[in-house]
């Protein structure tokens, strides 16, 4: 666009050399100012984009990790409690951790599917 302006200016300002140089100087000035504004805007946009992407990606990652870890922790704790009360020392914890892993994956699946209920709607 600035290029077109420059050409148009040059075409109309042919008769007088001094007017032409003055006009082209003004055009260059406008060009430079436009370029600087444009650069400012794009860097600001890029910075904003990076910050936003970082913030939401971090929040999303944190959410998914907490879902997964919470499943394992709950399974492990349940297994450990069963161990304590039933006296079957390592097995409750081992099996509890395995079920916890499965529950963590279930949580992850649900979180990424955007589903909140504990079960999918029954077909009834």
């Amino acid at each position, binding site marked *: 666009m600035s290029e077109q302006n420059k050409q148009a200016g040059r075409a109309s300002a042919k008769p007088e050399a001094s007017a032409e140089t003055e006009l082209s100087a003004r055009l260059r000035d406008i060009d430079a100012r436009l370029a600087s504004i444009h650069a400012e805007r794009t860097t600001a946009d890029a910075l904003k984009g990076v*910050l936003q992407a970082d*913030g939401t990606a971090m929040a999303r990652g944190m959410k998914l990790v907490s879902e997964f870890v919470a499943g394992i922790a*709950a399974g492990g704790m349940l297994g450990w409690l069963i161990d304590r009360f039933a006296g079957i020392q390592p097995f409750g914890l081992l099996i509890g951790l395995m*079920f916890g892993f499965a529950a963590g994956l279930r949580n992850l699946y649900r979180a990424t599917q955007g589903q909140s209920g504990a079960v999918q*709607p029954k077909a009834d």
Partner: protein
Amino acid sequence: MASPLDQFVIKPIIPLGKIGASEIAFTNASLFMMLVVGAIGLFFMAATSQRALVPGRMQAFAEMLYEFVANTLKSAAGKEGMQFFPLVFSLFLFVLTANFMGMIPGAFTVTSHIIVTFALAMLVFLTVIGVGFAKHGTHFLGLFVPGGAPAALVPFLVVIEVISFLSRPISLGMRLFANMLAGHIALKVFAGFVVSLGALGIGGILGATLPLGMIVALTALEFLVAFLQAYVFTILTCVYLNDALHPGH
């Protein structure tokens, strides 16, 4: 240079004696919890004192808060969910105010302690269980039986669903805690860079402008996180209450 974890140290202010081996005291955590509750109470007393038909600035803000939470609750748990509005609104305001109060330099962040967030999450969890059983009896247990699964798999799936259900308060409490803790540590670490670089002379001071800029950006991000985590906590509370009100839907 102070450790970035110093901000989380709980210091007793007024010792109140002992129960068994554990010391009971009025700590800085208790102080800030009371400040949070006091700030909320004062704000709402001031905001609702006019009771104008055309709200002033503060009353408009209070009404906005009310409608924001009410709409969240209604969209997640339906009209019946509104009976839990006092609980949900209190939780939202407490978490939000605690998060924002933690952003004041030198202030203690109540929600950066897992026992606080976990206690709040357990409150929600026990409410869900209590309401679920009171309203639906054993029908509430249908929440744990997935529909359309082969009969041989159902016992395993029930165990997984129960563990998944038990993991809810853990993930609910841990998410808020981890976000606040991580954000505040990051702020303090970058602030530490500024101090130690600034001690290195003129080159160091020039270099210290980089982490300083980072702190400004992180502070803005932390304000966003403070609001977002309060909102996430609230919306999950609503979703869980929905399960208690309508199991099997």
